[in-house]
């Protein structure tokens, strides 16, 4: 019951922040609100016992993403362009949301030990990973050995994305105002 109360209030808060961020046109305020959204979402993840996800959300969502968005903000105008609401995207988004809401009813209960995800390969890993891999930590052996190519690919993607972002916005952070606007491109971004 208390869990329900906490979850409901946190979700309501998330919805409130999201709607406010949509309504605002001042982009700096939107960036700040998205940071607040990440912090509240991380609190929600902690309540749901996904502490590692919560830390990722707090560090990446509230930290790095906010700073990257601020760096982007120095390249674009401070206000959002006025635009009318287009119907087709609104319809598609609503439809997708409804479909997801329907799909949620099909999910197993939270923490159900009979859920498919706990009965597919997880027992094998728990029993055999120390013998097969030789690493006592099961999560490490899954990430670094069973799914090593997957992890390697992920790392490659994130690394490439980081380099691309740094190349695009790295040298072009806020230019000095009085220095005749002479910008140096392609400087390393530290």
């Amino acid at each position, binding site marked *: 019951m208390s869990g329900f109360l906490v979850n409901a209030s946190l979700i309501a808060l998330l919805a409130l922040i999201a709607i406010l961020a949509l309504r605002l046109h001042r982009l700096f305020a939107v960036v700040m609100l998205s940071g*607040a959204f990440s912090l509240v979402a991380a*609190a929600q993840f902690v309540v749901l016992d996904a502490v590692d996800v919560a*830390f990722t959300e707090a560090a990446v969502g509230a*930290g790095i993403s906010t700073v990257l968005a601020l760096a982007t903000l120095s390249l674009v105008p401070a206000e959002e362009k006025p635009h009318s609401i287009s119907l087709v995207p609104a319809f598609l988004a609503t439809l997708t949301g409804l479909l997801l809401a329907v799909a949620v009813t099909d999910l197993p209960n939270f923490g159900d030990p009979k859920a498919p995800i706990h009965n597919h390969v997880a027992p094998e890993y728990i029993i055999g990973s120390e013998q097969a891999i030789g690493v006592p930590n099961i999560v490490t052996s899954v990430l670094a050995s069973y799914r090593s190519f997957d992890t390697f690919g992920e790392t490659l993607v994130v690394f490439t994305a980081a380099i691309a972002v740094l190349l695009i916005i790295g040298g072009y952070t806020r230019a000095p105002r009085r220095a005749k606007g002479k910008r140096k491109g392609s400087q390393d971004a530290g």
Partner: protein
Amino acid sequence: MSCLAAALLALGVGFILAITRATLGPTPFDRVLAVNTVGTLAVLAISVYGFFDGRPAFLDIALLYALINFIGTIAILKYFRFGTLGDHALPNSDEDGA
């Protein structure tokens, strides 16, 4: 139960006040401060939940969270002051309301 509800209500009021300030805030610094407050309130919410759920380990999580929040705010403010996070900071850039 009612204690938890009261604590949550107080935290919720705090959240809404902070988010109002982040939405209305005339200067960027109001907004930065408001988001920092939201982070502090999230720390408090985790602590309160851990206390009422009988899980003192949540206090450690809340502490780490406070550290992340602090570093994030410093990063935003540093970005504001220097326009960059690297070490090639502009020596004479004054702060401005982006």
